[in-house]
């Protein structure tokens, strides 16, 4: 919890008093948690599926323009003013995911690689079963935490969750809930690649998969969080 405060007080302009108060309150109440975005990365680190589920700022498509500039990415004037709509016209325009989330997921992927990649990686290797494949918390970013899950075929699942760091006993329950969610998403992904018309080397473009994942995430958010 202390590290979370340290990170947040550096980066955010919000009064730290407010943050302390909120965290205190939420640790008294039930855990407040919502899955914000999901990334599925292939074995050559190519993106297969990137999706944002909640507009945590309550924000809209306009934010993408500012965010792109904010993160030092050249504002892509042409694509932003595209008629297809700002939400999908970030630089990797095929994914329905805001720029900020993509940035966070990229950073988390670096950490993933550090943990589970080739030497001098930390030597984490995936074992059979959801327990073996769950990497755990990759990194906290402001109020978000990124969890990772890596299959034996090196397909990586990254889940960005908005939650508060809890005392150890409660955190274990939270971790196991997230593990269960990632296991379900893994199963949905497997069912999708069994589709004979799906090219496993290209991004997932199935609406059916999208709908199913969305449903799982909504169920998770409702059972865990207040969003």
């Amino acid at each position: 919890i202390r590290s979370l405060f340290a990170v947040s007080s550096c980066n955010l302009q919000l009064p730290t008093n407010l943050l302390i108060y909120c965290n205190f309150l939420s640790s008294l109440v039930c855990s407040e948690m919502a899955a914000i975005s999901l990334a599925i990365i292939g074995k050559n680190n190519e993106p297969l599926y990137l999706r944002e589920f909640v507009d945590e700022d309550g924000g809209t498509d306009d934010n993408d323009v500012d965010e792109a500039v904010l993160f030092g990415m050249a504002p892509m004037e042409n694509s932003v003013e595209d008629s297809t709509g700002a939400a999908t016209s970030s630089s990797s325009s095929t994914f329905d995911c805001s720029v900020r989330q993509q940035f966070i997921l990229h950073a988390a992927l670096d950490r993933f690689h550090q943990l589970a990649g080739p030497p001098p990686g930390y030597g984490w290797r995936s074992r059979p079963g959801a327990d073996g494949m769950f990497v755990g918390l990759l990194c906290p970013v402001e109020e978000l935490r990124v969890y990772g899950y890596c299959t034996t075929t090196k397909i990586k699942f990254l889940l960005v969750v908005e939650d508060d760091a809890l005392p150890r006993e409660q955190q274990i329950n939270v971790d196991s809930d997230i593990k269960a969610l990632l296991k379900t998403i893994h199963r949905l992904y497997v069912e999708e690649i069994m589709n004979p018309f799906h090219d496993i080397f290209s991004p997932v473009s199935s609406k059916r998969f999208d709908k199913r994942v969305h449903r799982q995430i909504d169920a998770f958010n409702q059972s865990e969080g207040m969003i």
Partner: protein
Amino acid sequence: MSKSTAASNGQNLWAKIPKANAELFALTYGALVTEVMRDADGNAHEVNEQLEKIGYSIGIRSVDEFLAKSNAPYCKSLEDTAQVVGKTAFRMFLGINCDVQQHSPTNFSLILQENPLSLFVELPENYKETLQYTILYCGVIRGAMEMLNYKVECSLVKSTLRGDDVDEIKVDLKQVLQDGAGDDYKEE
């Protein structure tokens, strides 16, 4: 043949016959369809034709197996045949229960509530209307009936892959063929 005996016959046969893994079956068929698609360069009509022909060659062979293994009694009319095909044959080979709807003395429909061939399948947008994925069944029925001297036309009316809630195969009797001695023996 009454409906209940056809169904119970089918069930008994299904219990005795050796079984295969449903996922393996569906994946094999999926691989077959995508390969045929690649050969036909994505022309959906050509693919449909090919799949129907494949079904036809399966049908002409499996009808003998069916008649040998089952105790299907003599069918006096197309209604009886429809019951045997829908309740006994489909149950024996695929393990699924099929509803039979008789539209007229020469026309019936088979309604499949579940389809083992289309497990996991989702048709891509550009093929949703044109590709008839389970047209294999139509070929099988056509082949089987032809060996019994019924010339039928089968078509896939409804398909779960296109958004309908069931699969429906319509079978239309065109002609009852006469046993011929073959072209070589035709009298001039």
